[in-house]
């Protein structure tokens, strides 16, 4: 990751944050705005981060995965559905149901990616077509089951969507408690510490995603597994010659990638809101591919790029909060259809390669033939 690209990311994020501070300073102190923007950015970037990690693992092993969107959608559905079954049919306690929901989501991601692996590695289907098949299958499958299971004839839920067990709780990191003694009696100091604390109080999947970024980076570039993964993605024949099982490595990495996509799916229906609606992923899987490319197929780079997209979404959310204090010249920022274009236009801009060319793994998308 070169400095030009990090600089661009920092610039965009600073611009987006400044806009929100300018608009909102009439209502809240700047520090609070910045920290709450940061907290929202990290949270809403979660599915993008995980999706990009999913792409990194698949493509570093040489398999293009455009089906991340569909994997997320299916996982979001089955994770949510699993939670509902556990809670309403098996009468498990809410916390257990939610936990099992996350498990089902990850499992679904793994199974969907197993299908992708079979298509692209064993049957050597064109990988972009294979991914598109996954995406279409996901829309059909979730749409059909969503209607059939809840509203179909003989539905166990009797024609309505039952209540889910709820969402994952926010985990409190006790920064305020630790530093309150430093502040002494100063109320402003305490408020500032509390504001900073907000950035770290995240829900489990959001927190896990950040940890997984660094873990993935370490695994890919500092372990034997990572070296082998990169070898089968760059030069599978050479890897095969030195005794690495190319097919096995590719399968394993695609399935790991699928589990990341599954966790991203869980974010939508188990961490963010306790409900499912058709097509809820709304292109996030594709945007995460752009983040992966912009991050030059490295986990940390992909995370940084995901944060840019997260920040543009956080801007929209904050504009709703500051709706009553927006000066007239900034009022266009409330047009969600127009401001909502930011991630898509940003993606296309990034893909032009103006901010530095990126290099995909050499054997990306090429089936391995002995």
């Amino acid at each position, binding site marked *: 990751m070169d400095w030009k690209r990090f600089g661009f990311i920092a610039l965009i994020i600073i611009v987006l944050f400044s806009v929100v501070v300018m608009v909102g300073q009439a209502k809240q102190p700047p520090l609070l705005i910045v920290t709450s923007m940061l907290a929202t950015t990290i949270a809403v970037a979660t599915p993008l981060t995980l999706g990009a990690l999913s792409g990194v693992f698949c493509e570093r092993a040489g398999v*293009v995965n*455009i089906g991340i969107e569909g994997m997320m959608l299916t996982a979001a559905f089955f994770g949510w559905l699993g939670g509902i079954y556990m809670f309403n049919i098996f009468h498990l306690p809410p916390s257990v149901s939610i936990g099992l929901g996350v498990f089902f989501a990850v499992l679904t991601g793994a199974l969907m990616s197993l299908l992708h692996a079979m*298509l692209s590695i064993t*049957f*050597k*289907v*064109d*990988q*972009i*077509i*294979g991914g*598109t*098949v996954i*995406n*279409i*299958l996901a*829309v*059909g*499958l979730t*749409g*059909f089951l*969503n*209607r*059939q299971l809840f*509203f*179909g*004839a*003989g539905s166990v839920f009797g024609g309505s969507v039952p209540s889910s067990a709820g969402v994952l709780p926010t985990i409190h990191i006790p920064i305020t408690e630790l530093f309150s003694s430093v502040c002494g009696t100063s109320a402003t100091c305490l408020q500032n510490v509390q504001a900073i604390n907000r950035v770290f109080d995240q829900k489990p999947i959001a927190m896990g995603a950040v940890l997984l970024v660094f873990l993935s980076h370490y695994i890919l570039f500092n372990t034997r597994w990572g070296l082998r993964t990169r070898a089968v993605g760059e030069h599978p024949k050479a890897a095969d010659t030195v005794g690495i099982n190319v097919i096995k490595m590719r399968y394993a990495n695609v399935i790991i990638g699928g589990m990341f996509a599954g966790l991203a799916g869980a974010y939508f229906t188990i961490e963010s809101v306790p409900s499912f609606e058709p097509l809820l992923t*709304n*292109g996030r899987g*594709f945007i995460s*591919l*752009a983040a992966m*490319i912009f991050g030059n197929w490295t986990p940390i780079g992909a995370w940084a790029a995901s944060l840019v997209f997260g920040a543009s979404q956080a801007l929209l959310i904050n504009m709703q909060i500051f709706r009553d204090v927006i000066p007239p010249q900034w009022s266009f920022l409330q*047009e969600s*259809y*127009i401001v*909502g*274009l930011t991630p*898509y*236009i940003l*993606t*296309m801009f990034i*893909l*032009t*390669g*103006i901010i530095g060319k990126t290099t*995909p793994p050499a054997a*990306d*998308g*090429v089936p391995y033939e002995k």
Partner: protein
Amino acid sequence: MQEEKQSNSLTRQILQSISNAGLVPFLAILTAVVLGGIIIAFVGGNPFLAYRGLIEGSFGSTKALSETAVWATPYIFAGLAVALAFKGGLFNIGAEGQLAVGAVFSALIGYALPEWLGVDLPTIIHLPLAILVGMLMGGLWAGIVGWLKAYTGGHEVINTIMMNYIALNTTSFLLNGIMKDRSPTNVIARTPLIADSARMPAIFDGLRVHWGFILALLVAFFIWWLLNKTTLGFEIRTVGLNPDAAQYAGINVKRTIILTMILSGALAGLAGAIEVTGLNYRHELGFSIGYGYDAIAIALLGKSHPLGIVLAAFLFAAMRNGATRMQFLTQMPVDLISMIQALILLFVAADAIIRYIYRIKAKGERVVLTRGWGG
């Protein structure tokens, strides 16, 4: 004697090639239908009744046939759009957005042009104009992606998807704002009705099938002619097969890529324009959800051949149209059709699975449809 034998073997060759081309798609459909039946039985329905409803609803009466043709019309255009891009080595996932943009602008010309000019236009001018503008805007929308691909290497797969979301957001913005139907009872995001002079007449009285359907068949033939009988078609196919060789042979690859995307987008835009001028007489938000993805399935099922696409479009149209009857008979949700269509696509795309199940030997070389991020 000798000659007879030769002509005999030629006929057999032709029959052989037709059955070769059709065999795998046919088996793919068959397998998907059987699997779909198993799913229906699994969720407590009667698969035979469901499929009976599907066939009755799509071919059972003159009206049903007419409705199937109505459904098939945009499918043919959009399927051709994706197939043309495939021929040029490009994967256009953006038919959805190009279609929406085409529809919006076609509707705009349809309802606003007489107002702007202050005169009533004759059909002979107004209708073609509305269709052409829709086509043009669809072409332009896709042309941006083609330009990005040719000059910056930005991959068309992600860019067309991004353009889909941009199209969706922009049309939502327009249809909820300046282009919204201002009639007092309206609460939906839709344009006003287009003028009578911009409407395409129906072919038969009392049936909804309109001249756009005939146009779709003509355009399918035109695309076949363009691809196989013209220099441009040759250039498109050559760039699709091997851009380096095309460059070496003196073909302007960048120009061809952009042209291919523009033509592809124009076909998708045409689909939208025809839906507006021939069927709905306005553009309404969300009417086109899923056309773009269906188009990919149709192009793959039809093996990117115009005749194959017309047949595949009919199959998909029949399923969509018959779904209502199926739902009425078996209480199976219409979404089931999306499932079966996804399965068809799965087996068509992964024909290796079908070949494996039915023990059919692969012939010829593997066709490369898309390329990776490297450009």
